[in-house]
């Protein structure tokens, strides 16, 4: 990969009581790269991403953004650094329209009186519409309430929302988990579109075929450790078998510190 990584997480550790959720994990994300993050349940994927998005504070380790050391202690911090998280359940207010959701919490205002701002609805609608056009998201009008959208459209709005503020890094938690086949291919198109526009994306997914389709690189976690970090390559069956063998512990590329589990030994 070329250039300096946009995100570098180094030696991240996090425990919850006696449970070591992350044991010294390193993760790199390059510019305009789609990184697949996979692992079985409780492997530590979500914990790692919550550290990056500010929901958790790590016990040890540090994070570099554009080679600058940063301290992320809240979701606000990470958002200010250009990191946006797209949540699995979309995190949209269904009773509001598309434009209101895109700008929720960051409304464009004409003037402000203390904490209360007079909204500039027209600008928000225009910008939301041009955002949808730019990302080729097909929704008739931004004045449509989210409750009237399909699952795929909702996911597109949730992703578009992250893009509205020129996020450098977008983290997606299972973006295709709840979608129909047709909607999945649209969301994958959208991810490609974001990549073309220069965004860097980390995508947590159980669906290896999705990562195979749009991913450049894949990182596998198991029991809170990184066990694989490799480019997406080969044909789909070989790729899937390889990744699954990492996920279930049959292979491990980073096991030199742990003597009893030699790489590929069990195969």
């Amino acid at each position: 990969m070329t250039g300096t990584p946009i995100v570098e997480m180094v030696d991240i550790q996090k425990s919850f009581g006696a449970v070591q959720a992350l044991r010294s994990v390193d993760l790199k994300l390059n510019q305009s790269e789609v990184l697949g993050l996979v692992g079985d349940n409780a492997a530590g994927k979500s914990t790692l991403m919550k550290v990056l998005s500010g929901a958790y504070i790590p016990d040890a380790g540090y994070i570099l953004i554009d080679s600058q050391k940063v301290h992320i202690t809240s979701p606000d911090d990470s958002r200010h650094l250009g990191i946006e998280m797209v949540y699995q359940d979309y995190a949209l207010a269904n009773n509001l329209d598309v434009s209101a959701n895109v700008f929720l919490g960051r409304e464009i205002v004409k003037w402000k009186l203390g904490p209360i701002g007079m909204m500039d609805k027209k600008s928000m609608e225009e910008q939301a519409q041009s955002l949808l056009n730019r990302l080729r998201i097909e929704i008739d009008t931004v004045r449509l309430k989210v409750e009237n959208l399909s699952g795929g459209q909702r996911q597109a709005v949730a992703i578009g929302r992250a893009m509205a503020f020129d996020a450098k890094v977008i983290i997606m938690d299972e973006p295709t988990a709840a979608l129909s086949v047709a909607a999945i291919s649209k969301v994958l198109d959208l991810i490609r579109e974001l990549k073309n526009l220069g965004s860097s994306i980390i995508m947590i997914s159980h669906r290896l075929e999705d990562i195979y389709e749009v991913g450049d690189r894949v990182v596998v976690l198991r029991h809170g450790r990184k066990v694989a970090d490799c480019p997406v390559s080969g044909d789909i069956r070989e790729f899937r078998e390889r990744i699954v063998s990492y996920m279930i512990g049959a292979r491990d590329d980073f096991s030199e510190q742990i003597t009893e589990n030699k790489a590929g030994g069990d195969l």
Partner: protein
Amino acid sequence: MTAEPKANRKARVSLTQFRELNVLIAFLLLCIFFYSQSPDVFLKPANLAVIMRFVATFGLLAIGELFVIITGGIDLSVGSMTALTGVIVATLMIKGVGPIPPLGIPLSIIIVVILAGLVGLWHGFSVTKMRIPPFIITLGTWLMARGLAAYITRGYPIVFESDFPFLRLGQGEIFQIPIMFIILVVVALIGSFTLNSTTLGRHIYAIGGNIEAARLSGVHVNRVRIFSYITSSILACLVGIMLASRLGQGTPTVGTAYELWAIAAAVIGGTSLFGGEGSVIGVLLGAAIMGVMINGMVLLNISSYLQNVILGIVLVIAVTYDTLRRYRSK
């Protein structure tokens, strides 16, 4: 391609106003019906003033309730709060407190509004920071405020002299329009502007729609919810002041069950008790429907027991219709 979104936009706008439009049509039909039944009385200025005072009372309470209900909460204390604030404002103006002599009208009003704001702050704080269900915390105030009002007055009303200037607020009219109603219109305009055009209003709706999404989007969820409870308490206080002026006394029994009437007005006007939906104009129409119905039934000499039965039926029909409409649209 460019014409299509515009057509859709129009369709959508008329759909969202559909609900208020239905309520408006129901309101107009009721007016026509009662006018046809008693054409010589219904439109008389004196009768209209009665309706307007009713609408002002319940409209103001319902607007406060609306702010809370949209966020997914409820405020059961507003009826008792009208009694308590009415009693306090009368005490401050007529008797004074202990060694302190009676205070002037403006100062008394300012003090009681601040007290009501503190009660609202208490509700909001309990709901957000202590995670007490709004139903419970405001039920507590419902009891406490009523009890305190009776305790302060020892159960007797505190009566104003009939020429006390404060009484103009509730009894006075400007061009045959009660001052109470003018206050309602001003509050409604401010409330409507707040909900529709400010970030605060949008965040109130967002919290009712999906509180977790609002929080993740950086909305100051707790602050906004506390604000809605304060709004509700202050509007209840405003009604308490107006009713004390209207009745010429601060009395601990005023406003009994008004919180339920206010909630009924909000619901008839299309407010969803699940939060996230409702508008000031809908709430006003809901209060107006109730006002016109009660007035009309009195004009028609319908037994006051039967009046409650009919109002109950209207409430159930309104909610059933709204639920079915929403179910069908999904």
